[in-house]
């Protein structure tokens, strides 16, 4: 049972002795280019994510959220600082890490069926055929895509394609799942459905999630904690605990005065960041 009470609160100070830290980011700094034309995307970002925690990351547009995720997933090297996944330093894509992109049409392989798309990472890990099909089928059932195993991704709607990408991540059983604005290009109704799907997936599998979004409502609705980033060069401005009860609901949770207060407070902060960056 997931309630806010029994969740770890993710205080950075306890990270060294706390074995349940899954993702540990220390003093991350990323600069593009060199010399005169060097651009600092991320200045100094440190935070931790506990096992089973749902952490959302928000920030003003262009604040280097994608750079952050690419660095965390080992697709891009940090200029300075370190990232640890399950206490092991990241250099190159770490095992036990899954990624869901915003561009679902481009992250699914069009020549593979839905089932093939969910199983190919498992095949690469040499999971035997029976096991990977079983894991894929149950993951597809979890995201509501039973019966679509033999379809091709391009035969599905955008929301369903993103469900395939989520099922792929679920079947992979990652230590931590990184999501890069995963619902930014689906319609509002689909988006609400997918948000509730993520809450379900997180509850059923106790998954650890780092969810990057530009939508503040989304971050407060989903997260146990919201990390607020500054504009470029990026630093962590705030880490906000979200003490809203579970299960969360699109109607009642979003009408909760605490929800309104939290989202207003974060929105205000980001607006402040934005105007600050114009100075």
């Amino acid at each position, binding site marked *: 049972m997931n309630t806010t009470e029994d969740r770890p609160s993710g205080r950075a100070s306890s990270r060294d002795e706390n074995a349940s830290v899954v993702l540990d980011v220390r003093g991350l700094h990323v600069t593009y280019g060199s010399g005169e034309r060097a651009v600092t995307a991320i200045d100094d970002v440190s935070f931790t994510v506990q096992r089973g925690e749902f952490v959302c990351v928000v920030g003003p547009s262009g604040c280097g959220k994608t750079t952050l995720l690419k660095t965390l997933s080992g*697709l891009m090297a940090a200029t300075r600082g370190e990232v640890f996944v399950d206490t092991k330093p990241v250099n190159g*894509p770490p095992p036990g890490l899954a990624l869901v992109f915003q561009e679902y049409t481009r992250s699914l392989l069009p020549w593979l069926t839905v089932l093939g798309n969910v199983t190919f*990472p498992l095949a690469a890990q040499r999971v035997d055929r029976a096991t990977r099909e079983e894991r894929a089928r149950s993951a597809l059932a979890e995201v509501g895509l039973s019966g679509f195993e033999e379809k091709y991704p391009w035969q599905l709607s955008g929301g369903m394609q993103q469900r395939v990408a989520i099922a792929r991540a679920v079947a992979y059983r990652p230590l931590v799942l990184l999501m890069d604005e995963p619902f930014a290009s689906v319609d509002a109704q689909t988006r609400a459905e997918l948000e509730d799907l993520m809450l379900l997936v997180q509850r059923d599998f106790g998954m650890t999630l780092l969810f990057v979004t530009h939508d503040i409502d989304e971050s407060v609705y989903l997260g146990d904690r919201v990390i607020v980033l500054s504009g470029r060069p990026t630093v962590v401005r705030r880490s906000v605990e979200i003490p809203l009860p579970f299960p969360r609901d699109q109607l009642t949770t979003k009408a909760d005065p605490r929800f309104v207060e939290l989202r207003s407070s974060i929105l205000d902060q980001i607006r402040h960041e934005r105007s600050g960056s114009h100075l």
Partner: protein
Amino acid sequence: MKATRRWGILGLELATPIVLIALWWALSAHSSSPYFPPLKDIVHGFFQTWKGSNLTTDLLPSVLRFLVGFAIALLAGISIGLLLGLSPRARRDLSPLTEFSRALPIAALVPVGLVILGPGATMEIALIAFGCVWPILVASTDGVRGVDPVLLDTARAYGLSRRQRIRTVVLPAALPQIAAGVRIAIGIGIATMVIANIFGATSGLGYFVIQAQQSFDVLGTWAGLLMIGLIGVLANGLYLIVQHRLLAWHRGWRASTEGS
């Protein structure tokens, strides 16, 4: 609807030569020119020619050399194309060489081939391979370069090794382009099969046609020409069947992205 159109195109490709042949048959029926014998006689000569020993002395060797040369080109073209597509450095360093080599007409290379390798199967296979490799290589390079970086990032994030990424992502993604290059290569391969076989050869289709021409065997010349054309049609038909099966996903995917 897409599928029927596809088969319609295939049907048209088979029907066009048939219609032309029928026209030829009718117009040449009463010809008395020694250079343009009635098609009836040509067809008769065709069967006379290819049911005999010419089948094994001329047709088979040429087809085999084509197949071997083409297979070498396919293997080399895709492997080198993959390398060039993945490595900007290799691309830059090798591009003067590839640009020069692919611009060379095969006909100009026959004398060189004769000097280096002498007449015979080895020289012919080498020239066929050389002629076919460029379109496949260039198409593979472009196909590999065009692979969506999000697909590659996805595969990397899921821990696929470089080898696994090439097999699972890069090659399938590049396949539609590679197929287009292969189709061009088939035409070049058949032309080269004949050209390389004309000088210094002692067996094969090109040799047969030249031999017939020089001994004033007009029907034999026509029989050779028809056979070469037939091989071309057959090779193209085989290509279309393989392509149709291998790239079924690509047609569906393209149709689905055209709408958006």
